[in-house]
């Protein structure tokens, strides 16, 4: 009788632990998908910031002192000629700088012919597609008015695309 009672108690305790285990596992797994997407967003943000502040993209001291999150579009448009040299260097499949304001009526990709009357600068990597996100940056260039040069800074978003880790 006593052995029977102990056995029942053991079964009950084991069942209880199993149920607790299932509950814990379910709780953990339900949050995993959210964690993955948050981590990807965070990676994209950090990568975009790192790229924006790299010597090849950043404004440096060219625009009235040092600026944070500032991209020199004159530099970037020149960088397009060296896309192949920089293959795989940025850690992203592709980099897109999209001018947000002022708004252009039609999306126009920049090249040396239409710059600066365009709103998208693409730096293509070797692989296309994947996860894409980015961060706000100031997009500065040298403009001229009546023969005088001045700094023209606009609002843009630097978007990076990279392959998802499966």
């Amino acid at each position, binding site marked *: 009788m*006593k052995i029977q009672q102990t056995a029942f108690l053991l079964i009950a305790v084991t069942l209880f632990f199993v149920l607790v285990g299932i509950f814990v596992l379910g709780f953990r797994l339900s949050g995993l998908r959210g964690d993955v997407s948050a981590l990807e967003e965070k990676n994209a943000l950090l990568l975009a910031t790192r790229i924006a502040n790299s010597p090849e993209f950043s404004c440096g001291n060219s625009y009235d002192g040092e600026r944070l999150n500032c991209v020199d579009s004159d530099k970037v448009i020149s960088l397009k000629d060296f896309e192949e040299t920089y293959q795989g260097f940025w850690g992203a499949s592709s980099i897109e700088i999209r001018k947000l304001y002022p708004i252009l009526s039609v999306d126009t990709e920049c090249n040396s012919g239409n710059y600066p009357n365009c709103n998208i600068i693409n730096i293509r990597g070797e692989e296309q597609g994947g996860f894409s996100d980015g961060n706000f940056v*100031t997009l500065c260039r040298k403009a001229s008015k009546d023969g005088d040069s001045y700094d023209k800074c606009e*609002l843009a978003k630097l978007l990076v695309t990279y392959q998802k880790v499966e």
Partner: protein
Amino acid sequence: MIKDKNAQEEMVGFGIIIGIVAIILLIFLWFALTDRDETSLDDYKTESFLQSALQYTTECEGSNGFYEINELSFECDKRRSCLNGKDSCEILNTTIRETLEAAWKGESSVKGYSLNITSDGNELMPAFVWGNLTGSSRGAREEFPKPGTLIGFVFKIYS
């Protein structure tokens, strides 16, 4: 009598086990709920937006060239006009409103936003508000001091 005592001991033992498991569960829940790092992402985006937007070159020209939004706010505070005679506050108002719309109105995760500009703690112009200002918000603040004036920008997004 002995049987009752044994049953009592078993009950106490079972109670102790339940107690231990409950404590383990509580510790796990505490870790599960405090382990998440959700704070920085939206804050980081709002900070970047505010920093970038305030460096936008406006159409208002002064004696030293075109003003950026943060510089234009000082001109607006002093009620000065641009070289072309346009009202600095009007240009500031239009530029900020359109910048906010261009940056945030297409974001599906954002239900609303607000931007307040103050001069020495007093409202410089009516706040820029759009959408549903829910209870969940993230924000950024920038301040620009000049002798005699402190201009503050407080931006919040609501999700």
